[in-house]
């Protein structure tokens, strides 16, 4: 029987839904569980001549998701229905693809017992730290590289965890998800030594070892180049925890993988990540080092950096939560070459500290004080181009390496320096204050300008946050933020006032004012007001105003929104 994609999806859907009907008819009591969630984000756009925000033809954007799962003992089925009519501006994250129409975005069936766990259809999975393989969904960002195929997880012996995956990756959405062209296959083994050997069961030192192998297949359609159709990668990792000390390291290696991001060179890729932590009650130290070269690993050779990623290389920098620190100059990992380290130290001065120093006594106070500092720096790798003019795009030699590099030698170009210090203190039963300072050195040309030469941004940010309990259940929170820089769009001021009435209401107003912009027309206020109502598992939020692109956290939830002027209505619920 030949079925087209739509028919196949429907048939599968019907099969998947059979248990729902059984569940509804069987009243014997213990028949299984249904749960699900719904989310609708809709936006009404207006033209804004000041920001240049242009509404789409339909003036609106609607993204909606419904997720249902049914579990019966060891058996589980689930699916996600999605609607984009049309998608919100700037959604999904990749600009090369589009999401449109309504249909099934994800569906699976899973069976699990003590020995194994098998999934057919879509699934999310990761090996180790994800440097070699991770499929995941980041809905607010519009990133979803769900696998569509088969996954098997087996634990044949105590402490031995094996995983096998095979399938294609989700790419775009056109009345249903569409997959990319390549096939991904992977194996992962993890050995938890303490669980494997009874002699180590009670040992204070916990050790686990892991190894992965991943291969992708994509046909060679090039008439010019001889491309490898199978590209393998492998990696290993060690995790050790002994009381206060934790250590993890992962190394991955990728075979030659000519693709659009490395300009079709036949060089291998490598990456290493190591992290050491020491922590005890009230104190923590966290040190990390990383280096990577030529590590874009996607199941298609010619897609955007957001699409069809097989591996996962998150930024080493701290993920800041304050508006100006989080949204203007966030660092993005450079898979094609970066080396760096980061360190963070936290200390909590105990309440009623008996330390000799007057300052410690004062900081300890009645409620204690928490101090945190972090620093991250990343550079490019010291790279020598074999052809200094870098004009090898016309060279079709199937062995060309492009450049020479040492994985452990930093180049002169600073990509990011990110320093942050914060002090968090409760002054009285009603009042909390927090002060944070940030200092960024940011290579804007490379990270945001697509390689265009732009001046390095030097930015200083101060943030004061005050929380005050007005009366029981009524709280007010104020954030005052200032960013100073001579580059890019100059100085910014952000003010946020949030008034909450627990457990249902949240009202907030935020203004971001780009008062330091050298262009008089660009000295704009980005004013946003929001009201949110929450009841148990449901939340409704109405927001209006002028939005600058970035990550916003208002009234308790963080999300990414594109630049737009208008009204936004978001509804979420689950059951």
């Amino acid at each position, binding site marked *: 029987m030949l079925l087209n994609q739509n028919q196949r999806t429907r048939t599968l859907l019907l099969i998947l839904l059979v248990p729902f009907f059984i569940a509804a008819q069987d009243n014997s009591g213990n028949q299984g569980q249904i749960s*699900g969630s719904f989310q609708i984000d809709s936006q009404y756009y207006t033209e804004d001549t000041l920001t240049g925000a242009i509404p789409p033809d339909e003036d609106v954007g609607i993204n909606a998701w419904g997720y249902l799962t049914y579990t019966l003992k060891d058996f589980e089925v689930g699916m996600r229905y999605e609607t984009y009519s049309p998608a919100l501006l700037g959604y999904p994250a990749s600009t090369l693809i589009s999401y449109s129409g309504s249909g099934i975005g994800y569906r699976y069936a899973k069976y699990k017992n003590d020995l194994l766990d098998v999934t057919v259809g879509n699934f999310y*999975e*990761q090996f180790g730290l994800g440097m070699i393989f991770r499929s995941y969904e980041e809905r607010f960002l519009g990133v979803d590289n769900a696998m569509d195929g088969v996954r098997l997880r087996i634990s044949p012996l105590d402490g031995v965890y094996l995983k096998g995956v095979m399938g294609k990756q989700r790419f775009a959405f056109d009345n249903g998800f569409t997959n990319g062209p390549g096939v991904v296959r992977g194996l992962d083994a993890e050995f938890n030594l303490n669980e494997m050997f009874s002699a180590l069961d009670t040992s204070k030192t916990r050790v686990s070892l892991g190894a992965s192998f991943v291969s992708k297949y994509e046909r060679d359609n090039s008439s010019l180049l001889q491309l490898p159709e199978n590209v393998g990668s492998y990696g290993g990792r060690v995790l050790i925890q002994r009381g206060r000390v934790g250590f993890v390291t992962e190394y991955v290696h990728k075979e030659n993988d000519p693709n659009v991001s490395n300009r079709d060179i036949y060089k291998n890729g490598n990456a290493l990540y190591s992290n050491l932590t020491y922590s005890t009650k009230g104190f923590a130290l966290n040190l990390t080092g990383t280096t990577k070269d030529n590590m874009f690993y996607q199941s298609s050779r010619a897609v955007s950096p957001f699409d069809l990623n097989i591996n996962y290389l998150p930024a080493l920098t701290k993920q800041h939560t304050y508006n100006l620190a989080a949204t203007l100059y966030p660092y993005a990992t450079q898979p094609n070459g970066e080396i760096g380290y980061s360190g963070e130290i936290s200390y909590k001065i105990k309440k009623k500290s008996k330390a000799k120093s007057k300052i410690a006594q004062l900081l300890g106070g009645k409620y204690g004080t928490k101090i945190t500092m972090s620093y991250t720096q990343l550079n490019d790798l010291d790279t020598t181009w074999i052809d200094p003019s870098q004009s090898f795009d016309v060279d079709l030699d199937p062995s060309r390496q492009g450049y020479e590099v040492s994985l452990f030698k930093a180049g002169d170009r600073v990509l990011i320096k990110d320093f942050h210090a914060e002090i968090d203190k409760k002054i009285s039963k009603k009042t909390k204050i927090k002060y944070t300072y940030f200092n960024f050195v940011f290579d804007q040309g490379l990270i945001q300008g697509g390689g265009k030469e732009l001046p390095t941004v030097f930015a200083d940010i101060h943030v004061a946050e005050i929380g005050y309990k007005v009366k029981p259940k009524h709280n007010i929170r104020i954030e005052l933020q200032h960013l100073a820089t001579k580059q890019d769009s100059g100085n910014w001021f952000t003010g946020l006032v949030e008034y909450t009435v627990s457990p249902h209401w949240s009202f907030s107003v935020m203004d971001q004012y780009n008062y330091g912009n050298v262009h008089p027309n660009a000295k704009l206020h980005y004013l946003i007001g929001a009201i949110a109502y929450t009841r*148990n598992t449901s939340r409704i939020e109405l927001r209006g105003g002028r939005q600058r692109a970035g990550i916003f956290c208002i009234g308790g939830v963080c999300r990414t929104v594109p630049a737009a002027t208008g009204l936004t209505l978001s509804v979420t619920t689950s059951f």
Partner: protein
Amino acid sequence: MRNILIIAIALVCTLNTQAQNKTVPSVDLKDMNGKVINSSDFHNDGKPYVINFWATWCGPCKRELNNIAEVYEDWQDETGVKLYAISIDDARRSRQVKPYVDASGWEYEVLLDENSDFRRAMNVSNPPYTFLVDGNGKIVYQHISYTEGDEDELYEKIKALTN
């Protein structure tokens, strides 16, 4: 059109079963030492417990758990309640969980859901998200997001279960 019909039928079925209190699904998590712990083994000797989803990158989550940390000892003395704090940080960021928890002085049972398997099984769209489970393992209350003072409402619900 047919898809919509199917969804509608599924929804009706859902409403039929909604009256039952759900239990916690079975998903493997890890503790901060890397030991595998299954969520179906969560228990508190017949007393209620709380499951809270959070992440190190989520400001409201940290506010909530820090606020509860201040009163957690009192809560435990008065009701014997236990809180499972489920970090949905991915495998990379989950390395920051133990340092953060220790430095903040939290006394919760902190577990890692690095692949968001438990998050999906519990239908948690975004953190923070809180579940209250009674002594028989039934989920009796859920709450999305956090505003200052929400912990008082949660505590009222806990007390109602233990009295």
